[in-house]
């Protein structure tokens, strides 16, 4: 072939390669991949609801949110009811708290949802992207420790936080280990190895759970730590709360941690945990509400309520937050967002009870109201009392 042809071809190849490289480098900065939303297997019919907060004159618009699977059953219920009441359609993708945080930072969604408090790194990145960002509490829920042992009904096995941490650190490997049987004198625990199930994705449920384990076990604190994704000592990872529930259901001798709604809806048995006051508590609505009582609530509501000192509290509970920027960039979306948030912390709370999420205490509601009232569009608050 002639030299000139070679030259033309070579230049075109180099040009093409550089164009591809540049465009790929651009898109890798922005790409996020959502996974499928879980379906809620049982949802009660809504009772007659009180009149919702009326919309402002801006017409109904659609909102997109993404975040943890922890509150997904409740949010799915809420957004369905809210759509029937106001016509505003809100899409929620339960992709994990970590993904919710990264997507709100990237600006691809209107609000994020997380059960993990943003790390200072994540907070800095979000603030660089869109200005100050709020953690608005929506509800609180419990993390149930589920297991798969035939013949032992739910609420029989008693564990302390320390023993639970050792199980997850793989230092206790068998169900009839002396440290477990000593807490359960009446139970006939089988001689089976414990299959430990954890989350394979980045998860707010993991954050709440590892927060608890870090508080009750210094070994856990030094070796593994508290985060949305950690270096698990073993064994099996499941994708999402639904994945963990599925693995535990399928694997005899396994133990796992899921949000309470998933345990109830899948009829999974759970253990009783010793709380900080020394009482054994089951994961429940009452235990979750008790965990929030007596905890000092900061203005930014970034507080963990695990291992609560309340005698009735269940030890592994956490708030779940919606992450929203203070400075909204779209008037219609901003108004739809604040209206939805206001509805959620007032009228929406009644729907949590049937799904075993605890309603916000009045102190928490007051803080959340203050946060919502601070959301602005072009310097003007979007909602006024």
């Amino acid at each position: 072939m002639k030299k000139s042809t070679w030259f033309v071809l070579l230049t075109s190849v180099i040009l093409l390669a550089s164009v591809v490289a540049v465009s790929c480098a651009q898109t890798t900065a922005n790409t996020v991949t959502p996974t499928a939303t879980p379906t809620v297997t049982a949802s009660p019919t809504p009772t007659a609801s009180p009149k919702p907060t009326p919309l402002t004159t801006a017409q109904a618009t659609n909102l997109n949110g993404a975040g943890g699977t922890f509150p997904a059953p409740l949010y799915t219920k809420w957004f369905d009811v809210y759509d029937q009441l106001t016509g505003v359609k809100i899409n929620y993708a339960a992709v994990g708290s970590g993904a919710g945080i990264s997507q709100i930072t990237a600006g691809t969604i209107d609000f994020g949802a997380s059960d993990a408090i943003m790390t200072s790194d994540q907070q800095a990145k979000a603030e660089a992207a869109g200005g100050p960002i709020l953690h608005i509490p929506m509800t609180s829920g419990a993390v149930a420790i589920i297991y798969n042992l035939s013949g032992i009904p739910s609420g029989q096995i008693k564990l302390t936080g320390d023993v639970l941490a050792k199980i997850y650190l793989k230092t206790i490997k068998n169900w009839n280990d002396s440290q477990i049987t000593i807490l359960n004198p009446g139970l006939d625990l089988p001689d089976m190895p414990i299959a430990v199930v954890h989350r394979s994705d980045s998860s707010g449920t993991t954050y709440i759970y590892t927060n608890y384990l870090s508080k009750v076990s210094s070994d856990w604190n030094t070796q593994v730590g508290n985060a949305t994704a950690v270096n698990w000592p073993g064994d099996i990872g499941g994708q999402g709360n639904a994945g963990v529930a599925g693995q535990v259901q399928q694997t005899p001798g396994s133990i796992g941690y899921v949000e309470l709604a998933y345990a109830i809806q899948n009829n999974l048995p759970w253990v009783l945990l010793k709380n900080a006051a020394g009482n054994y508590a089951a994961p429940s609505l009452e235990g979750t509400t008790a965990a929030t009582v007596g905890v000092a609530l900061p203005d930014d509501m970034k507080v963990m309520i695990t291992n609560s000192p309340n005698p009735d509290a269940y030890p592994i509970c956490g708030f779940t937050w919606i992450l929203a920027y203070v400075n909204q960039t779209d008037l219609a979306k901003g108004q739809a967002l604040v209206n939805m948030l206001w509805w959620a912390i007032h009228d929406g709370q009644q729907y949590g009870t049937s799904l075993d999420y605890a309603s916000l205490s009045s102190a928490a509601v007051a803080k959340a109201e203050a946060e919502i009232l601070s959301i602005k569009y072009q310097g003007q608050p979007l909602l006024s009392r």
Partner: protein
Amino acid sequence: MKAAILGKNEPGRAAGFSTRRHRRFGDPIFSNATLVLAFVIVGLLLGMIIVLNIDAFPAIRKFGLGFITSLTWDPVKEQFGALPAIFGTLLSSAIALIIAIPISLGAAIFLVELAPSWIRGPASFLIEMLAAIPSVIIGLWGLFVLVPFVRSPIESWLGDKLGFLPFFQGPPFGVGFLAAGMILSVMVIPIITAMSRDVIRAVPASQRESMLALGATRWEVIRRVVLPYCRSGLVGAVILGLGRALGETMAVTMVIGNNYAISASLFAPGTTIASKIASEFSEATSDVYIGSLVELALVLFAVTLVINVIARLLVWRLTRVKEATE
């Protein structure tokens, strides 16, 4: 050009049409266009390598070569290492090949040599259909059908009878390297079978017939003539299947258990490079975390490259040996 093809009396001129200029015009354009397209593919590959290197740079700078030998994957302390993922990828692919090669080879030989003609068509069609099933579906089937089956009859039997071997120790979870290897074999069998069948079919009838004329049995014909003749093609088919096994993501993620550790036991849960990236990429937040995941992708790239080079050397050597003996 038309005139030249039709062979009219004046090969150069018909209807005021200069075929000589026309031919010179059309061919170079065609050959250059196809050349550009070929180079576009190369350019795409180079572009991808460049982008991967750029994105992986924070991790490369932090860990260096230790990334490939380190065993931890700790997002909290930001220490990442690739060895368990590499091990998992290679082990699950090896199990897949060990299961798939006898089955595929047997199926291919049966389809070409031994099957009655009315079976050949439908059987080949069905095997190719197996290749068309999306990997997510196979993954779901694996999770709900294969994993319980592996846990109960297979792993408990292997644990009982062969539990003294380090490969079959440990609790039978169901999910793990064995299940992943079996799922991968399901995906790899149609590829190897289809290619092997084509290669075996290409053996000239004269080779077979001369062997039969010398008094060989069917088995001897297959073993001594057909298979040696197709050696390089069969190796190529296996490498193609291996390529799919190395990169398979969704099906493996669902049945491998997602545990980041190396284990001698096939029952243990593990991780492959593809499943690690798929599980964590959407939520990786820091630069080092994302960089480590991209570096995992680069490692997979390198592993695939090395295996392909070895395969080509093997094929080249087999062909040389064959030529030398003919």
